[in-house]
């Protein structure tokens, strides 16, 4: 029984982090049609901003939300500087891969210069440990497992229940028609990036609370988020959320049965196999749109 609960909690926890990251990637892809390869760096930056604010002496309840808000600004700036000028170019997908990779390298090395290579750690959301169903888990992990679905649900209702969310979904589907109903398309692009960066930053804060942070901490989560969106289909945000948890469980189970080393290889193998059968992802509908 304890094996099962181990895998269950591990999967739920990893799945939460992956979902947080993947949703942002999918949001940017569906609205703008580009892949943001600096998404992992956003995660790192969020964690470091939070760390810096805590180091300034701010209490966690102020420092963490503030860091998330600052990340929204960072996302906006990145979009305005390396994505927006390229919109309309015939090879935008390719060029944005390069500019976001380069921007990621710029930010990562900037973080290295500012904060140094030494590992840092953030305070946990909640201190302490507990035992559930025979598994020892930290309260920090439980907080993440609980908070993530709440935030994703909030995002979902923002997209589906508000006028601004409706506008974002519209831009994702038809840019010309969005112009013709008077939407501010460039601002909505900025908003998509801002939301994505905030979510990534929050994921970074979550991660910094139980693992050491360093400037390259975002690389692996970016990879996982990429797998998740490919699995779930890059054309929606609900698909990647399901896929994130599915992959979380898969990883937890594979870690247990096949070992830590083989798990990533297995994951990529499954990914490639999935794409051969269903290129548009497991949970994807065939169109591009946010839902």
């Amino acid at each position, binding site marked *: 029984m304890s094996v099962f609960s181990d895998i269950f909690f591990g999967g739920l926890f990893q799945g939460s982090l992956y979902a947080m990251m993947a949703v942002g990637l999918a949001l940017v892809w569906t609205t703008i049609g580009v892949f943001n390869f600096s998404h992992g760096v956003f995660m790192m930056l969020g964690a470091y901003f939070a760390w810096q604010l805590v180091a300034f002496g701010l209490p966690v309840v102020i420092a963490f939300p503030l860091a998330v808000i600052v990340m929204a600004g960072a996302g906006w700036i990145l979009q305005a500087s*390396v994505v927006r000028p390229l919109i309309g170019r015939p090879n935008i997908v390719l060029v944005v891969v390069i500019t976001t990779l*380069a921007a990621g390298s710029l930010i990562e090395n900037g973080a290295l210069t500012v904060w140094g290579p030494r590992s840092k750690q953030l305070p946990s959301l909640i201190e302490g440990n507990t035992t559930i169903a025979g598994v020892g888990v930290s309260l920090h992990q439980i907080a993440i497992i609980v908070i993530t679905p709440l935030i994703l649900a909030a995002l979902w209702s923002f997209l589906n229940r508000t006028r601004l969310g409706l506008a974002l979904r519209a831009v994702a589907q038809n840019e010309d028609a969005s112009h013709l109903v008077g939407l501010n398309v460039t601002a909505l692009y900025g908003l998509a990036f801002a939301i994505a960066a905030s979510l990534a930053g929050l994921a970074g804060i979550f991660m910094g609370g139980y693992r050491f942070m360093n400037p390259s901490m975002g690389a692996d989560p970016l990879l996982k988020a990429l797998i998740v969106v490919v699995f779930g289909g890059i054309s929606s945000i609900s698909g990647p959320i399901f896929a994130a948890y599915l992959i979380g469980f898969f990883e937890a189970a594979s870690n247990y049965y096949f070992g830590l*080393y083989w798990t990533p290889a297995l994951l990529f193998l499954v990914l490639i196999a999935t794409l051969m059968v269903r290129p548009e992802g497991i949970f994807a509908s065939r169109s591009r749109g946010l839902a």
Partner: protein
Amino acid sequence: MTLLNVAIPAAPGRVTWNREAIGFVAGFLLLALLPLVFGDSYSRHVLIMIFIYAVVASNWDLSLGYGGVFNFGHLALFGIGVYTYSLLAKLAGVDPWIALVAGGVIATLAAVLVTIPILRLKGIYIILVTFGFAQLVMQVIVSQSDLTGGTQGLVRVPGLYIFDHNMIRDGKIAYFYIALALLVLSTLFLRLFVRSRAGASIVALRDNEEYAISRGVSLVRQRMVTLAASAFFTGIAGAFYAAYQRNASIDVFGMSLATIILSMVLLGGTATIYGAIVASFVLTVFSEAMADFGAWRLMISALLIIVIMLVYPSGLVGMIRAAWTAVADRIKRPA
């Protein structure tokens, strides 16, 4: 897929064979004379690295620029060359020269393998699968740490030899000429390929898939041929890199190397082959010139890449062409 159609269309035969051959010979002769100017082993080391990067970048240009297939796993083919050579030469005791060629062959086979899942895919999905392929290769190498040394990598990999010549105490002159020979062969191969009928048909496929297929061009075969062709010298370059550095490390699968090489392809201007080679020179020399700046060096490089991508979408070649047109205009219209 239009998303990945890259700006400059290739026009096979725009420059006549004779003129290209003269330029080719003159250019590489000039490179062959460089050791006369650069006597110190540091400069020669930089040149050797430039040649290696130039091979990798120009071969990437074949699949990306001409084929329109964004193989994000191109550096994995390089990495496969590195590890094939290292494992064969060090652990299996195979002759280094044979191991070098084996690096190219295995990389070619790997390219054929990775083509299978992307045959039916388009655009962003090709990027994702090939990216996944690169990660898969890396993860397998890391997980087989008994053989590959895992994240530590392999050290004391045997180098190349030429009879009894001392490769280590010759001021890197032997490695310089081997690297140059590699670049010459690779470039010759690439230019012959893109100017051949096969080259014309992959460009046709890139620019108008439906039409090309209706004219009897096979998508499956051409994609496979393009990726395989782009893999051979990339794999050999990887093997040579391992022989030259005398070690193998998983760093070659990292994002930073891929970003640099891809920048070379795009800065050089896609679908030119020569552009990638020129850009390898510019970027490497630029990066070495800033060696004293530490972390700033990477930041300045990144910034430079962004600025050039924003201002000159067709890369350095576009920049040179724009300058050339401006000059030509001035010559045509005397004041």
